[in-house]
């Protein structure tokens, strides 16, 4: 499976999907004009991804703003990852600035609704 990198724009996050390193990252702001269209290739990438038995994976979200339609797309992505993670070797980290209640809340909502185990990680504000 090939590595996928999407550069950040003013309205979309940087995305790194690196199956060799076992590292997946979503970082920045997410409010594309059409989130369904923006996240479609990402969801498609995960459709074709099969985690290896003897490898650990890290999926990290470090988003500072997420629009409501992006929330739905990311939720869909998390449900997909949850289905893929039959061996429990994909660890998901949901980062939020320590004083950013709204991003933390989104992570909590995802945990509640998708029964996905997210590690909420408060980071200090620069």
């Amino acid at each position, binding site marked *: 499976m090939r590595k996928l990198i999407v550069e950040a724009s*003013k*309205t979309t996050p940087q995305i790194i999907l690196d199956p060799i390193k076992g590292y997946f990252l979503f970082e920045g702001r997410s*409010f*594309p*004009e*059409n*989130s*369904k*269209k923006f996240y479609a290739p990402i969801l498609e990438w995960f459709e074709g991804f099969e985690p290896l038995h003897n490898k650990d994976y890290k999926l990290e979200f470090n988003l500072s*703003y997420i*629009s*409501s*339609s992006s*929330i*739905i*797309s990311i*939720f*869909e992505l998390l*449900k997909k990852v949850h289905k893929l993670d039959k061996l429990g070797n994909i660890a998901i980290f949901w980062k939020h600035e320590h*004083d*950013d*209640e*709204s991003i933390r809340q989104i992570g909590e*909502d995802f945990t*509640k*609704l998708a029964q996905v185990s997210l590690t909420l990680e408060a980071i200090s504000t620069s």
Partner: protein
Amino acid sequence: MLEISVHNKLQTLILNQFESHKTVLNKTGRVIKYAALKNISTSDIEQIASTSDSDMLLSGFSKRGRKSFFSCVIELLQNLKIHGTFTQLNFDQQFCFVSKSDDTYRLDTFNFIATEAVRPLSNKLNKYLNSNYDELKAQYLNILSEGKISKKGGAGLGLITLCLKSNFNLTYKIETINEHMSFLMFSVQVPSNL
């Protein structure tokens, strides 16, 4: 020919509304930070959100207030971008104002809508605005778990997010012009101490 004439009427009407809205904001002592009468673009939305955020930081607004206003700008203006063209006549002009007072930041928007869309929209808005936080949050989670996004990219969470982020400081006004056309104005504001 008829279509051009109706187009001109809409242009005049939106211009009059724009000017009268500007006068009201000035009279109430609000400082207008941004005003535009145009087809709002994605780049405009990003610029309005980011510029407002920087100014709110300088003006001492809380981080929660800044993030809430940022969210309101994105949700309301993306909503305007998706639904703000009066498709029956392909009239794509809208307007928006960002204004501030000592203790609030506010976004006002205006666009034309089909009269047949008025009732469903106002029913939905009244339902949201008459809910309390917990009720609305439950509706939000329900829509999120269903996870449907339209082809245009709307998710149905935008209006709920606006109510929640503004702490229900969302007002709207709809005026029916005739059986085909109405106009819709939204106003959302965030206090400095949110």
